[in-house]
């Protein structure tokens, strides 16, 4: 057993998969450059020393080529792990992601598969609008992609390994503020190391985890918002409000059963997400629960999300836009006290 940060856990996952399967390779910008920083957030640091530059491929600044080449290589039987440095840049390769990777298996009538992984960091970090998005909702919407959102080091390792072995294309959204020890220090970043077992483990997709049990309210939250929800739950407990926090861990497939069972028990649901409110992943989850859980609800389903604005730069503005622990507490309190 050892304690690793998310960045370290991801690195270890990639290393183990590359040792285990020679079809696995990495492709992205700045990921293997000697003397470089191991990708934008140090996740790949040291891997090119071990595996050489033939398996840790540094590309030109060409997101379309990064993703398109990963699609082509995967179609020919390789298992690439591609990455873009910021999730905002996924849109530079929107065609390759939406029209190529996602549709290839389907259009071919199931004769071709695209077993690739695409990693992208999300989250606001005072860098301004084009380096700040949390676009999970866009990609949850595309049939063909699986989407993972690991919020702990334990989950990051287990989910990445499952992603590599999955025969579908898998998007992994990591949060910049959660890379933790060993990652680039983000101002205000939490230190989120976990115990990582020495023996190998995989985490299946579509299996949420109840991070904290409670009886008055169910919160479903991902990534940084999950950690803020836990902090909010601690504060609410002091007021006698008992909050259950569920981390879905994957958005596609999504563990509806765990969420519904929790709502059956507690009768109230609050979704906390960092992506923009309109059309965010929370909207989809809310619709599902309103459908399958109509009779279980004592209160409307509420979402706390970033306001529908591009992300501003100034800390005071960014902190206003992104859900804070206080906003989560207020929303939860209003729901439980029957004021929502």
């Amino acid at each position, binding site marked *: *057993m050892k304690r690793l940060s998310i960045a370290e856990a991801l690195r270890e996952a990639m290393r183990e998969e590359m040792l285990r399967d020679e079809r696995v390779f990495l492709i992205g910008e700045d990921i293997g450059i000697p003397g470089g920083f191991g990708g934008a957030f140090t996740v790949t640091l040291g891997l090119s020393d071990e595996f050489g530059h033939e398996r840790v491929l540094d590309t030109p600044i060409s997101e379309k080529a990064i993703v398109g080449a990963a699609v082509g290589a995967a179609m020919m039987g390789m298992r690439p792990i591609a990455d873009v440095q910021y999730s905002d840049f996924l849109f530079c390769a929107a065609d390759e992601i939406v029209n190529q990777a996602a549709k290839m298996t389907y259009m071919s009538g199931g004769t071709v598969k695209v077993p690739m992984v695409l990693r992208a960091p999300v989250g606001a970090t005072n860098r301004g609008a084009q380096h700040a998005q949390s676009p999970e909702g866009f990609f949850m919407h595309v049939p063909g992609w699986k989407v993972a959102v690991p919020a702990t080091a*334990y989950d990051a390792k*287990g989910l990445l390994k*499952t992603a590599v072995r999955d025969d579908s294309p898998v998007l992994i959204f990591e949060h910049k503020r959660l890379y933790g020890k060993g990652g680039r220090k983000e101002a205000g970043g939490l230190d989120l190391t976990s*115990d990582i*077992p*020495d*023996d*190998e*483990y*995989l*985490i*299946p*997709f*579509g*299996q949420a*985890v*109840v*991070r*904290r*049990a409670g*009886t008055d309210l169910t919160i479903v939250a991902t990534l940084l918002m999950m950690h803020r929800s836990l902090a909010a739950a601690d504060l609410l407990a002091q007021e006698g409000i008992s909050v259950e926090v569920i981390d879905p861990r994957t958005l596609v*497939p*999504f*563990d*509806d*059963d765990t969420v*519904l*069972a929790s*709502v*059956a*028990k*507690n*009768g109230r649901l609050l979704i906390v997400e960092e992506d923009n409110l309109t059309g965010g992943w929370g909207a989809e989850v809310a619709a*599902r629960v309103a459908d*399958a*859980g*109509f*009779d*279980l609800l004592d209160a409307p389903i509420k979402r706390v999300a970033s306001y529908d604005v591009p992300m501003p730069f100034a800390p005071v503005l960014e902190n206003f836009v992104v859900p804070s622990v206080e906003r989560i507490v207020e929303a939860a309190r209003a729901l439980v006290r029957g004021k929502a």
Partner: protein
Amino acid sequence: MAADVLIPNAGQASGEATIIRWRKKPGDRVQPGEVLLEVETDKATMEVEATATGVLQDVRFAEGAVVPILTAVAVIAESGERAASVVRSEVAPLAAPTPQNGNAAASDLIAIMRAHRPGRLVVSPLARRLAANTGVDLTGVTGSGPHGRIMKNDVQAAMARPAKTTTLAAETRTPTVEPGSRWIPFNATRRTIAERMTASAREAPQVTLTTEADAEALGNLRAQLRADLSDDVSFTDVFIKIAAAALREHPHLNARVENDGIRVFDALNIGIAVDTERGLIVPVIRDADRKGVAAIARERRNLVEQARSGKLRPDELSGGTFTLTNLGAYEIDAFTPIINPPQGAVLGVGRIVKKAVVRNDELRPGATVILSLTFDHRLVDGGPAARFLQRIKMLVEKPHLLIA
């Protein structure tokens, strides 16, 4: 072989267990028979053992979590082996494609809800609001939606007929022949009364308090009203006014038990028990506290006539929050009226009888009336109920207080 770690079914009545302590942690190697965690059920604390060899992983619930029985709380798998629960994400054979949403059966979810929130009705928000606005008692409504969900239509239907709170066994419809007797089937009214009285007796612990009030002032008041008003005001009308005034001051008797609490009503809608050929019918006088006794008299006479001719409308029969029953005409003194469910109390009035009374320590001819209050002991205790009855007695003996 990978295996889920399940909370075993040991006959827990509540269907769930609380995780008290994890004795192993993720990454520990375990063998069959080793204790993994301790859980507490409504019966006892029990230990959950491993049923396979391997590494404990994917611990999904923390200490303190309350989980339904047969929940998989962790997985045991060999390193490198995909855990059994991983299989869930694999696609079913191509023959049966299904939409990708969850597999939880709706009935399972309702079961979980009832385990944790007993008594909660399955009612749509719209139906709930409609019922609240019209005073329909949801516990007596049968829902026609999925899992018995009560919807707007069901509330509207309930408004059109008195609600059946329970159903009597169907087998009573088939008569057996017994010499020396004849079997008469229930008519609708009789059946409704039977069901409601049964429900009332079964669900509410009922206590009856009685008190004897001096009726002289009451008699005088009624005589004066009859003389000066064109309407024929009866004792019952005055009692309705008195009961309404007392309820205003004791709102917890204008209430009913609902789910895990008490619903107190703003409006004072008093039902009058009326004896008809078909049986007992209870039309309602709405906002009795806001109507003068003359208006009450008119309304009551009209309702009684409608009741006896079977022409009452649904809204005249529904929405009652308290009931008055007067058996004085039949020379009944005290009795134990049964609460009209789902109300919280009922006031029974006996006959006004001439008898000797003690006033200022002297024996005098006078008149008294016995008041019998039955109340739902879940709603209030004896003390508050007694005080309510005491107030009624005071208003009977000193009706001038009605305008104080």
